[in-house]
């Protein structure tokens, strides 16, 4: 069970949260202007990286807020959590920084 540091409430166990998928994927402002290909890209394509992953979590059984997290999908270690209106921390955090 992961330990997740909610930027509003502090560290809490995973069962208080719901996972929200890949982060920083804004819904297009005018979907009608997109081709089918582009729209399918928004709907379905995911980075699904092995390594550093920016993802959304919601503290569903806590403050209810969505926030973003950087997590290493190999170790499941959280590198950072941050609020939705914040930019992701630079890649000086985590395993890639050392490389």
């Amino acid at each position, binding site marked *: *069970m992961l330990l997740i540091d909610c930027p509003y409430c502090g560290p809490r166990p995973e069962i208080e949260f719901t996972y929200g998928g890949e982060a920083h994927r804004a819904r297009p402002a005018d979907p009608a202007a997109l081709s089918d290909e582009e729209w*399918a890209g928004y709907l379905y394509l*995911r980075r*699904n990286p092995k390594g550093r992953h920016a993802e959304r979590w919601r503290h569903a059984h806590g403050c209810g807020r969505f926030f973003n997290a950087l997590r290493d*999908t*190999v*170790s*499941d270690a959280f590198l950072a959590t941050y609020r939705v209106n914040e930019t992701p921390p630079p890649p000086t955090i985590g395993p890639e920084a050392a490389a």
Partner: protein
Amino acid sequence: MPEPRDRTRPAMQRFSFLSLIGHALRGHAGWQQQWRTPEPRPAYDAVIIGGGGHGLGTAYHLAHDHGMRNIAVLERGWIGGGNTGRNTTIIRSNYLFDESAALYDHALQMWERLSRTLDYNVMFSPRGVMMLAHTHHDVQVLRRHVHANRANGIDNEWLTPEAAQAFCPPLNIAPTLRYPVLGAALQRRGGVARHDAVAWGYARAADALGVDILQNCEVTAIRRDADGAVSAVETTRGTIRTGRVGIVAAGHSSVVAAMAGLRLPLESFPLQALVSEPVKPVLPCVVMSNTVHAYISQSDKGELVIGAGTDAYVSYSQRGGLHVTTETLAAICELFPTFRRLRMLRNWGGIVDTTPDRSPIIARTPVPGLYINCGWGTGGFKATPGSAHVFAWTMAKDAPHPINAAFTLERFRDGALIDEAAAAAVAH
């Protein structure tokens, strides 16, 4: 045309009871290697990335059905070490949609003769797969499956709770259960098989047809020529030239496809499974329940083999949270209260690549020469022979087999999904 190969390898030894006796008299000193450990060649006609059941099977069918001989299977670790060796081995074909039912029943029919096909006992055991209904919604959904399957000529029958218990005596059908058993859908042809044997059987048969199985050979890059077509793969064991690459990398499909600049509609999740200590035969069939999230069978060795839903988040860690296991076992203990004192012996995790509609992708890609077989989610093992057969066809002919024609990448663009998850509401 396949390149003529000079193979010094002796013909494949037959496996049989008589050969076992014969070898026993010689202290079993005369058994061949089941597959060779070759060095990579500089070029192959086709390269399969991923040495699981689907990948090895694809190589076998490319060689056996399509006459290709100059084929390599590249495996990052050891063959059968991914989801092939980690799954709970349930085999069934009672899927709702025609496309899925055709694909999985094609596989089931191949399972029924796979031991003979491969001369390797894969221990396919059609002991029946029973799916439980706990609510009236479950009843509606499962009965729809029964009717849809019957129309497709696929066996699936509806059982009352009493009939379900008669088929599976330890099942608790007390109406006082939190989620009582209201009925069950039974596919008698469904069952289980020995997962390792599938990988090894395909490896041995493919090797005998000249396929090079290259273990500890991780692909690090996919090269494309000026026209964008696949031209080579870079590996930890050197560069391999090839014009035809099939990605059959399960949880790592996104990672490998990205090497060719291809993004996929996939997310990779941890999926856990566990076994109990072995006990004498107590569970005669496979039981699945979506409402309480559990499935269970008993291996020939006597272990109860138990699986559940995935963890919630993308991960390549091959482990999940204990809360998923505890929830699963809570459900199992309600359905089988006599199992509560049995003990969990071993728990492990795999990485399952999941599509938005929970149906696989078995298709050509926009990159010429690149083919993909992925997105099996939690249910790929059951499809192994059928998947391998139609994917080899697709790679050999650069066109889909009728059975996998619907399982394209383009279906996501067009909205022509095969949404077993939404429609079925049953675990895969």
